[in-house]
């Protein structure tokens, strides 16, 4: 059976009334959290994990994917109307989108964002569906050494190469790896770093850690800042609909944004934001009206919005086919799969095709739902923005602790939530990135187990790790990604210093 038949089969699963309901809940929640600044899709999925204990696996995962897609849609609304991005992936949308809104063209800006997101989501989801079986075929021969190499690559790209300072990225990663060592060693049954606390035997809960880092740490940081800018809502004036020239200027950026965002989302630790910046720069370069950029050019909204939705679908490629999360949200979704005893990866396509293809097909459905939810209901979403910050953050913390308590109503678990929350606050304060510690905690045990399994198979021969071409290439890329930025930084130091001296700020 080809990808197309599987996709049709998946559509049959996803079109079941219960599944449609889950998808609808997911996209509605996702749009809401996308609109609200301060909560992202990663946090929302983490909060919902304990609640979905009792629901069925397919429905919950469909809901999570809906949240992910919805979050990418919703983020643009605040960017355009408030100049306040709801999600880091829609920062760039604020640049042109808010200018358009101020000129009374908020309607077309919102429309091009929503339609662009829809088209990008549609194309990228189809790309996911047609690429996945190919990658699965390659990945079926992956053994422990290939997986180990893949994880080393993810560690390096998430922490070193892309970090502003390799030191802080690596420190965050190693803290995550240290936390990952806590609990029973799966290969020998020995307890490590558990300090006589039975709860720690099973390791540190990923959801507790993620909720602490994203919700508690963030709330502490924002509370401490005290500069609460009064958000100024730009009303949507004039026609909501796009004019013929808007359409003519939007369709190419939509397509280009899709093809920029998708591969970047699929790269280990690429992240949606990079694609949005690249798409913006590309549109400005190619535009016939470069002078309009900075004053409300519609291309600067259409391209990046398409890119961020395409990269969300791109992220699902390595997650579903290899079990490799490349963003914080994907990492939490991986925890969601594991909660139901499922391990994403090539085998899941073979053992549970209904679930995987139902999930992929539901993304197409979710995409249609989002278009319907977003175009006519914008006014409703904007109302959400009028929730004052004290109630918003009080609510976030209430639900953050609800999730932790629901999973395990123990004082110790809440203590960990508080402890990691303070750690997350400190990390934000000192400019440590959050993603590496979360990725380290999730991938650390997997990397360790794959390494030790590989060495068990080879009876202690380390050379075995690089004797497979795939593993060797992956490890080579990882080494380059670690070393090259360090060299560039060292070489560029003198240049940077003279720059600093010349900088007026």
């Amino acid at each position: 059976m080809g990808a197309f038949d599987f996709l049709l089969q998946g559509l049959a699963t996803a079109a079941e009334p219960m599944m449609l309901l889950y998808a609808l809940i997911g996209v509605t929640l996702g749009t809401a959290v996308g609109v609200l600044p301060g909560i992202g899709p990663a946090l929302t999925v983490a909060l919902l994990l304990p609640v979905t204990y009792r629901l069925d696996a397919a429905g919950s995962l469909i809901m999570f994917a809906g949240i992910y897609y919805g979050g990418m849609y919703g983020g643009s609304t605040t960017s355009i109307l408030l100049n306040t991005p709801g999600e880091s992936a829609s920062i760039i949308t604020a640049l042109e989108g808010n200018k358009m809104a101020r000129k009374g063209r908020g309607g077309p800006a919102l429309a091009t964002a929503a339609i662009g997101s829809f088209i990008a989501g549609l194309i990228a989801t189809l790309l996911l569906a047609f690429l996945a079986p190919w990658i699965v075929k390659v990945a079926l021969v992956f053994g422990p050494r290939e997986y180990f190499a893949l994880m080393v690559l993810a560690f390096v790209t998430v922490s070193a190469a892309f970090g502003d300072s390799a030191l802080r990225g690596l420190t965050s990663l190693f803290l995550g790896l240290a936390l990952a060592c806590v609990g029973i060693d799966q290969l020998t049954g020995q307890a490590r770093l558990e300090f006589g606390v039975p709860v720690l035997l099973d390791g540190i809960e990923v959801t507790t850690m993620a909720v602490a880092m994203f919700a508690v740490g963030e709330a502490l940081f924002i509370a401490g800042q005290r500069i609460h800018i009064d958000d100024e809502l730009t009303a949507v004036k004039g026609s909501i609909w796009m004019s013929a020239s808007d359409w003519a200027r939007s369709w190419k950026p939509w397509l280009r944004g899709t093809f920029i965002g998708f591969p970047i989302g699929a790269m280990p630790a690429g992240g949606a934001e990079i694609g949005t910046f690249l798409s913006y720069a590309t549109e400005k370069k190619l535009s016939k009206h470069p002078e309009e950029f900075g004053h409300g050019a519609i291309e600067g909204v259409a391209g990046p919005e398409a890119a961020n939705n395409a990269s969300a679908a791109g992220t699902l490629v390595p997650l579903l086919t290899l079990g490799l999360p490349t963003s914080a949200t994907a990492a939490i979704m991986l925890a969601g799969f594991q909660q139901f005893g499922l391990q994403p990866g090539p085998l899941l396509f073979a053992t549970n095709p209904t679930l995987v293809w139902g999930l992929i097909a539901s993304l197409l459905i979710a995409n249609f739902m989002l278009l319907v939810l977003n175009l006519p209901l914008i006014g409703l979403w904007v109302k959400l923005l009028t929730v004052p910050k004290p109630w918003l953050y009080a609510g976030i913390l209430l639900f953050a602790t609800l999730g932790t308590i629901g999973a395990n109503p123990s004082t110790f678990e809440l203590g960990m939530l508080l402890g990691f929350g303070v750690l997350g606050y400190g990390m934000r304060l000192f400019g440590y990135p959050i993603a590496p510690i979360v990725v380290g905690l999730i991938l650390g045990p997997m990397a360790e187990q794959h390494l030790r399994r590989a060495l068990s198979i080879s009876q202690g021969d380390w050379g075995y790790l690089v004797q497979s071409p795939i593993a060797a290439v992956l490890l080579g890329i990882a080494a380059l990604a670690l070393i090259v930025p360090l060299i560039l930084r060292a070489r560029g130091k003198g240049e940077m210093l003279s720059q600093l001296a010349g900088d007026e700020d």
Partner: protein
Amino acid sequence: MSVTRFDPPRRRDPAALIIAAGLAVVAGVMLWDSARLADLGGYSGVGPASVPRVVAFGLLGLSVWTAIEALRGDFPQRPRQAPAPVLWIVAGLSAQMMLLHVAGFSIATGILFAFTARAFGKTNLAMTIPLGIGFAFVVWTIFSQLLMLNLPAGPLEHLIFPGA
């Protein structure tokens, strides 16, 4: 996702030195713990203690690197933070943690709600605490009675749902 505007200072950073020390302590604890583990490497030669050791040495290295950056003043300056709101939230979380099994979900979480709102500028606790408890109780009802989530019940919950 907030951005700080900073100009690079060039002086020693005691806070960064404390971070370096903290990393060294974590590394020390890991080394101490791994020393008591039996070496069950089997055929791989990599036992349960090996990876913690590698991570610990990595942390030691990062600790030294942090210390060097701290002494050279390469650490970025921190955004100015007001301690009071931060402490209010920490106090709210601590109160919830300690009250959870005594007073039940609604009361404990209501206090967290009110303290958080306090941190963000809603100072009237006499109004926010009852409001928070009421809201938390509605949430408790939905999640524990409808979604069958196991949330601790206290006097308030028992009063209204005697079976809980």
